């Protein structure tokens, strides 16, 4: 009984320390980087609910898609592939002065294998993601594919 109590107290302490660490030492930039990783992982594993949880209800992008359309497209696109591997690199996060909005620019490299033993494809794209802080944490509100500049 004494050992059980010690374990519970230790677990509680760990939990409190973790919460304190999250509260005081994890920056908004880290949270956004984690959110991007979570979204990439959700797309890779076809976890639409996890992805939906990362996106704001009023999402809208430069292709005219809302949240439901985006999730539908992700689901139908993902089903075309047997396997998908996403590498996120060159992440640059900018937090607005009021700490309520942020944007991140990333380079996403997507390696896919078509269903039914099809070909393997690799694509790279630079994407700009916009975020807003809500009571439930950071949520993605918009995605843009910025025009590439060569001059």
């Amino acid at each position, binding site marked *: 009984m004494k050992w059980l109590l010690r374990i519970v107290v230790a677990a509680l302490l760990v939990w409190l320390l973790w919460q304190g660490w999250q509260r005081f030492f994890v920056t908004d930039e880290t949270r956004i980087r984690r959110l991007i990783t979570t979204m990439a992982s959700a797309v890779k594993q076809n976890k639409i609910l996890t992805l939906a949880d990362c996106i704001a209800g009023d999402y809208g992008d430069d292709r005219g898609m809302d949240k439901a359309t985006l999730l539908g497209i992700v689901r139908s696109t993902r089903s075309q592939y047997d396997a998908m591997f996403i590498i996120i690199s*060159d992440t*640059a996060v900018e937090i607005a002065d009021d700490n309520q909005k942020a944007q991140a*620019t990333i380079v996403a490299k997507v390696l896919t294998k078509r269903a039914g033993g099809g070909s393997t494809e*690799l694509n790279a794209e*630079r994407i700009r993601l916009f975020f807003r802080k809500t009571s439930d944490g950071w949520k993605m509100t918009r995605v843009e594919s910025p025009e*590439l*500049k*060569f001059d």
Partner: protein
Amino acid sequence: MRRRTKILCWLLAVVAVLFLLSRFVAKPCVIVGESMAPTLRSWDLCLMRRVYHYQPRRGDVVMFRTADDPPIHFIKRVIALPGETVAVLNGVVQLNGAPLSEPHDINNSDWSLASTNVPPDRVFVIGDNRAEGGTETWHGFVATRLVVGKLIWHWRWKK
């Protein structure tokens, strides 16, 4: 113990030399996409010589970056040099009014470009894959300062 330390030092030295070589001399990269087919295909392994002040030369296969950060890198072939006039008529590249002799049989009639002067400090680049009609192959003008590498060797490991 002394032997282990020696091996570790050697390994560290090799890693450091490889890092410096890839950073300043020649960078290895893997091709993504078919825009440079048949010269380069997806998954080909390339070695790009680092270029710091690119001296444009027609026919060079170059790697260039986008101007803004984070950069994306592309590999294309230099077709027209600064000061030259380039046009594409029914898929045939015209250079200073004359058709450019190229080692490709395919001419994509969807490709067209009105006669344009290549501005100073720019080169006109396109991909070798003329069968493709997308913007991926068709490129355009690139500032020479954005050219970061020149193809020196490539290897096709995946047939």
